[in-house]
């Protein structure tokens, strides 16, 4: 299946979409396909919004984001589409449903566990808990039935569809990651429909060589896509390093609406798929970003 087919088939306008990856294995390829397919009114959730959310906001794909921050981590610098949408309603108004990083992680965890809520020891006294939010995404207080203490609890999040980009998967969808997993395991298993894109499609034997690295199993997965470099410009441990220059320049290159439209045309709407994107990126840069080998971590599974 191609990314285009998967996004067309499994992502519907108005749905809540989980996009995985915490600065590593971010599904940029999937997000760009959403833009090309003109998906609308998606409700996006992700621990750290970053330039991925900024692009989806600028392209008019979302009207509601649920995250703990949205910025360009390089610099650090602001993300202009995000600011334009919230401060000026360009391209349209969006709801920013602010979460703290660990709050949204615990909400994904509760979704993963199939429980309606889970306690957290932070948030009390902050405006994050006090600010009106959509029911089901707002933390609240309960009394601990054991200790009597007032305890903050966060609700489960179970998105309609989830997308992750991983190092490898087998053709059936058993997907593995290593390095920074972020919220991927909890977030993706909490979703009703699941799309996995992978740098490599491997034999199931490879999956079984280190089964602890599996984050979602095939019986839950709706689409598996072989999508090399699907996480550029962020890193993919063992495959490529973060494109520092591309990330750093993003803020400068998207500051005005005109600049943003040029950027979008160059990298997203002017190309048809990830392979064409990589042509724009250029062989030289690709070669430079490619990770050096560092194969390690074998242990004895003998019995």
């Amino acid at each position, binding site marked *: 299946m191609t990314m285009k087919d998967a996004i067309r088939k499994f992502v519907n306008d108005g749905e809540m979409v989980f996009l995985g990856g915490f600065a590593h294995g971010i599904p940029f390829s999937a997000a760009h396909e959403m833009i090309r397919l003109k998906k609308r009114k998606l409700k996006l959730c992700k621990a750290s919004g970053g330039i991925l959310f900024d692009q989806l906001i600028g392209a008019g794909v979302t009207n509601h984001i649920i995250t703990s921050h949205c910025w360009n981590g390089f610099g650090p610098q602001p993300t202009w589409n995000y600011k334009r949408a919230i401060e000026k309603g360009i391209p349209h108004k969006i709801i920013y449903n602010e979460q703290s990083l660990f709050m949204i992680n615990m909400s994904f965890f509760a979704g993963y566990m199939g429980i309606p809520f889970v306690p957290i020891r932070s948030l009390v006294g902050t405006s994050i808990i006090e600010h009106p939010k959509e029911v089901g995404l707002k933390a609240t207080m309960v009394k601990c039935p054991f200790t009597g203490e007032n305890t*903050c609890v966060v609700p489960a999040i179970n998105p309609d569809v989830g997308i992750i980009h991983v190092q490898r998967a087998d053709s059936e969808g058993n997907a593995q990651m290593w390095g920074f997993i972020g919220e991927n395991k909890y977030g993706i298993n909490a979703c009703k429909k699941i799309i996995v894109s992978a740098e490599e499609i491997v034999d199931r034997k490879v999956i079984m060589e280190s089964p602890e690295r599996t984050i979602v199993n095939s019986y839950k997965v709706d689409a598996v896509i072989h999508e090399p470099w699907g996480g550029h410009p962020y890193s993919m441990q063992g495959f490529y390093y973060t494109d520092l220059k591309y990330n750093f320049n993003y803020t400068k290159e998207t500051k005005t609406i005109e600049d943003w439209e040029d950027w979008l045309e160059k990298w997203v709407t002017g190309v048809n798929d990830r392979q064409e994107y990589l042509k724009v990126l250029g062989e030289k840069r690709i070669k430079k970003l490619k990770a050096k080998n560092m194969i390690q971590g074998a242990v004895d599974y003998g019995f």
Partner: protein
Amino acid sequence: MGSEEEKKYCTEYTGYEMMLISASRQIKANDIIFNAFHWPYLAVHIARLLHFPNLYTVIEIGNIQDQLIKPTRMPYSISDPVIVPNSLFIGDSVDVLSVLQRGEITLAFLSTSMIDKYGNCNTTVIGSYDKPIYRLPGGGGATEIAALSKKVIWLLDEHTKRKFQDRLQYITDPGYLDGYDSRIKAGYPPDSGPEAIISPLCIMRFDSKTKEAYLDALHPNISIEEVKENTGWDLKVAKELKQIEPPTIREIEVCRKTMKDAIEQCYILKPEWITYLEK
């Protein structure tokens, strides 16, 4: 910092450099540090290079580490993949939250856009939440780090009334809330909370009773008046006001090396912070 060599003080440095060095001096060998992105990361990096190569640090992405990255290198952020094979533990944010919630973090450094006299911070919004004047990036994990670390030290790279406000409209990260025992009443551990605020001008600490920030120590060549004029509340001054030791030659060398490495990793440091960097 025992030897004569190291005690030689540097005479030309920026307030930003003083802030980082002042911060790095707050660390003790046995601290379990929460290592946040940006200025906090630089301060901890300096302490590692100067004094504690085996400092225990935790970052929000799910890493625990107790030595410098090898080969020595400044990660571009807390998510640099170079960190992974330099870690004693890699888990996820839920694992890291467990470390915070179990009360194991003895010291955290955080930076913020604005702070109030009770050590509460706002990194969310200026103006109203729904019709903001400026929308800030949001707090990320700082909410939990501020809520649950035993000691929190806030770094502010600009000491102005806009940054140091009497009270904030929006609290992203909890400090002492409304002062006095309000933080404890909210349910936070009694042995947790803001420990200090470090700016280019000074170090503030918090009154043990009212929990209001007061001027505890001045950076070299800074006057009480300068601090008071740039602080948005009627700042009280410690009975025994301390004078901070200027950076040693060694400290400033390490600080500038760290800043250089940071710039190479896309950190934007303002021109006035790096005046002496090429000297």
